[in-house]
């Protein structure tokens, strides 16, 4: 059974339709990537899974519909989200940002904090620093750390490398891989940087104007000349 499955999903912002008949699935313990250009609907797709848009169609987690759940209930059911703009709490310390993430999983605060500090030692060193004074890379780490504090079994990560230096992108990639391998998390990332996505994901979905245009393994998609030119470089 798929861990996450979207069936004929349509998403709307008011009257504007942002996703059209999107279907995809994620197997347990797998990393998949959704690649596409700016405005393709990648963030909308993740927002929709989190119950933050108006949708039709089905969103199933372990076979159960989560369409009618509130965002807080979806988090409680085991979905963590690190959004593109981080949405951190700028005048709270790194530690307090992480502790907000523990709002629904208070029994595992210490163990989750230990995991976050092991993955991102910098966050322990700077635990008393306000996030408004941090670099983009550090804020991405706090965002991922906060998502981990929710004890997720499924982690949604929106454009984890956008605006970050190559060295930091490498650190984020390593951390995501460890989350999957060591913590057993199932991960969905969205990326404009298809090459970064390929280093992590076992399968990819290509999204264009809210429509899934292609899907498959990296090797399968590399065989498509048009897609290779558009997304994966010559």
């Amino acid at each position, binding site marked *: 059974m798929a861990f996450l499955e979207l069936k004929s999903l349509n998403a709307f912002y008011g009257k504007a339709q942002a996703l059209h008949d999107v279907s995809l699935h994620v197997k347990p313990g797998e990393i998949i990537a959704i690649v596409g250009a700016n405005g393709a609907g990648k963030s909308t797709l993740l927002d929709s899974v989190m119950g933050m848009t108006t949708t039709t169609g089905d969103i199933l987690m372990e076979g159960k519909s989560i369409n009618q759940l509130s*965002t*807080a209930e979806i988090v409680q059911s085991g979905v963590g989200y690190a959004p593109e703009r981080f949405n951190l*709490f700028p005048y*709270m310390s790194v530690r307090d940002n992480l502790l907000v*993430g523990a*709002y629904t*999983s208070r029994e595992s605060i210490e163990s989750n904090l230990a995991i976050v500090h092991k993955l991102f030692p910098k966050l322990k060193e700077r635990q008393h620093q306000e996030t408004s004074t941090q670099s983009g890379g550090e804020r991405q780490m706090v965002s991922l750390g906060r998502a981990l504090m929710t004890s997720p079994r499924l982690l949604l990560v929106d454009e984890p490398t956008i605006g970050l230096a190559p060295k930091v992108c490498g650190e984020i990639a390593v951390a995501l891989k460890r989350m999957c391998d060591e913590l057993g998390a199932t991960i969905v990332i969205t990326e404009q940087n298809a090459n970064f996505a390929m280093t992590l994901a076992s399968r990819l979905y290509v999204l264009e104007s809210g429509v899934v245009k292609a899907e498959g393994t990296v090797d399968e998609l590399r065989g498509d000349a048009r897609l290779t030119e558009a997304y994966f470089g010559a």
Partner: protein
Amino acid sequence: MMQIVIQGLLLSGLYALIAMGFTLIFSVGRVLNLAYGAYLLIGGYVYFTVSQTFGVPKPIGLLIAATVGCAVGLLKYRFLVKPLKGDHVAVEISTLILAVVLQAGVVFLYGDSSKILLPIVPGVIQVAGASVTYNLLAATIASWAILIGLYIIVRKTHIGRAMQAVSMDNKGAAISGVDPDKINMFTWGLSGTLGAIAGVFFASYTQLHPAMWVAPLIIAVAVVIVGGIGSIIGTLIVAHIIGFMEIISVALIAPELRGVFTMILIIAVLLIRPQGLFGREELQ
């Protein structure tokens, strides 16, 4: 001079208590609750009815007033603010209308004349040559206890961190598992409770009157604008600045100018530092 210092400290404590519920709502819910003074009106009249008319012990009367204030806050959020969410002008006009309606209700039930609310703690004590009523002293102690408790709740507890989170980033809070709607509900209930308690002390310091909601609203707005929205410490400090300005103007300049310097201070802050002296627009 000692009289000024002591009266200033006591009045400022009361002002801080009055302003705190208002700043909570603006910080967390982003709502300018122009009916905030109505909590004080309700608190004062409920306490008057329960304890002074029916003779219920004063602490229980205070508890009942606080509970009614909490209930009014919750109902106001559920049936007025939430349905109008996103339309700030509609919310502000509605809350103002609600305050006027509540005032009319009080006039209908109690008449439009002033009533004396007997001191919660009667008696007078001499402190360094200054006369201090136990009542205002009790209000100040209660005010400080509540403010310290509130500070600890906001800074050290899960619900407090969630309140800060909602005030800073609604989406960030939601994806952390915090339900912003429930946090708003909690904050409106807490604000109503604080307002009603402040109303009992304020009415016993001044008097009960159907229009008594206006002056505390102005105090709350003044403290929040000058202190900066969202800062508990800022609210406390500015409540003292305004309290002392009022006491000094009454004692040394002219009682008629009591509120004038506060208004001048508001305008000066809006011109020079619109975010307030301590504010960041988020709850801290």
